[in-house]
């Protein structure tokens, strides 16, 4: 990895829907902490192909998003890479374009897409109430996740 690893930090979510916005809040906090020309911090609510458009020309991407699992505890943070849930996503989305499919599609078309993808997923509690704040358990995870992303960046020159 040389000094010019172009990195995108992408906070994903819907900041109108309570815990769904947690990725956005983490990215907003990271924006104030990171000042390196090769790193871009972005917040977005888009999905599928539009997400693919954002990733073009980066070497590495760190995505922060909310997630809901069956037995997860609100605020729990998972560090994932696309391979770790590749199969499940393919199974789950026959027609909508899921993330791994979008990536594969982009690569087949010869787009320059990140070789390294890391996802920090934060277990959400409420994603269906209109609110611009997270629930307390999820709010506590924001600074923790910020630290985890900063730690992740330390691995980069």
């Amino acid at each position, binding site marked *: 990895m040389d000094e010019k690893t172009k990195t995108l930090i992408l906070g994903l979510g819907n900041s109108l829907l309570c815990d769904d916005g947690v990725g956005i809040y983490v990215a907003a906090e990271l924006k104030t902490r990171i000042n390196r020309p090769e790193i871009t911090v972005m917040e977005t609510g888009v999905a*599928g192909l539009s997400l693919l458009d954002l990733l073009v020309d980066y070497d590495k991407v760190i995505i922060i998003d909310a997630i*809901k699992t069956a037995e997860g505890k609100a605020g729990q943070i998972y560090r994932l890479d696309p391979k770790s849930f590749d199969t499940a996503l393919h199974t789950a989305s026959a027609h909508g374009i899921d993330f791994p499919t979008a990536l594969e599609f*982009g690569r087949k078309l010869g787009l320059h897409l990140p070789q390294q993808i890391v996802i920090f997923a934060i277990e959400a509690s409420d994603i269906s109430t209109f609110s611009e704040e997270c629930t307390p358990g999820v709010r506590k995870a924001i600074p923790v996740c910020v630290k985890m992303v900063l730690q992740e960046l330390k691995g980069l020159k």
Partner: protein
Amino acid sequence: MKKISIDPITRLEGHGKIEIFLNDAGEVENSYFQVPELRGFEKFSEGRLAEDMPQITQRICGVCPEAHHMASTKTLDALFHVDPPSPAKKLRELFYSAFYVTDHTTHFYILAGPDFVMGPDAPVAERNILGVIAKVGLELGGAVINTRMKNHHIIHMLGGRAVHPVFGLPGGVSKGLNEDERKEAEQIAKDSIEFAKLSLKVFDDIVLKNKAYVDMIVSDAFTHRTYYMGLVDEKNKVNFYDGKVRVVDPDGKEFAKYEPREYLNHVAEHVEPWSYMKFPYLKNIGWKGFVDGKDSGVFRATPLSRLNASDGMATPLAQEAYEKFYSTLGGKPVHHTLATHWARLVELLYAAERLLELSQDPEITSPNIRTIPTAKPDEGVGIVEAPRGTLTHHYITDENGIIKKANLIVATVNNAAAVNMSVKKAAMALIKPGKEITEGLLNRIEMAWRPYDLCLACATHNLPGKAPMEVVIYNSKGEIIQTLKS
């Protein structure tokens, strides 16, 4: 690192579900299309400045923020009693046409394409965009990406950013086009027209030349005779950005034509105990249940509806495509739900042609892009055609422009009753006692709702991409006998 496996079912929490109930004989008794409840939008909006609504409401949805942005902006014009200057209206429509090109392209190639290119019975793992490009070639995949990117560039030029644009203001827009930008938009429009023509050819080659597909499109399982709604211009031509709402009856005769502010005189919402979603219907016909026909107030608001509710397209090539559409399918109106995919491509061509017209309009580089509002705000309604159907915003404020009440009717909600009916009819036609319920069969049921391009709760930003749906089939004892996740 700990490996975490995420069961897809967990990610379906809070998303759409279709439940199909069978009777003792194994026939379809009933089916229910359900969506999650999003709580508190009214309360959330109360006390906010009305002029913030175009920014706030576009964040509801990760799929069509531009549609909410535009509906909200038009609502502010009405609320502040201000008429934007002509160049501003044209810039809005140019912006909106570029958005339509991106959205219709995505729907056709990502959602609809796999069913027809790969076939409804193809294995799930192949029935996606990767399967499509493996079959029709990488070149077309590249054209899809390019068309989207270029049109997003137009949105970016005008909205200041690619996502969640800051563009519409009460009385106008925030930014115009200079001559260089205009030229860029003009070239993008020309390329988009070629792409739209190519897409119609792909549809012609793959779908219309395959008798089995045409038979499926016109089959009774995928047909409902309903009312149709869409915005039209003064000549009753399809318009996405502005005009009057026109409703035609199942025979294609005009039933109503009204200004956005009059919508409550024409549309009412029916409530069912099993759904959070309300079911809009035509007030002057009345709610008669989930049935079609002239006596039922159920209407549809989709690309097919817009074509049915209009007298044609306002641009030449799209008009040709419109005429071919109706001559092939036996005249107006067309009631075949699967024809919505074709209608979407006719609209794609119109959006690209309209983009070109506007980019060549002498007024489009005018700096006269805003009329400053001076009247006191009170109440406003704004309607645009979102790609998925008619989108209504309605705000009531105090004299300082603080929201007291806000109501939105989004496209998917307009079609809620019809989606229920479409799924039930397809399920009844396809699920038969003693017949094995295969994946292909379930996919055909799924094809009954795919043309509506459901935008569930507009909360589709999460990693899987489009809103996941789950179909659950129960036997007469209420036991689950099969599920399909998409």
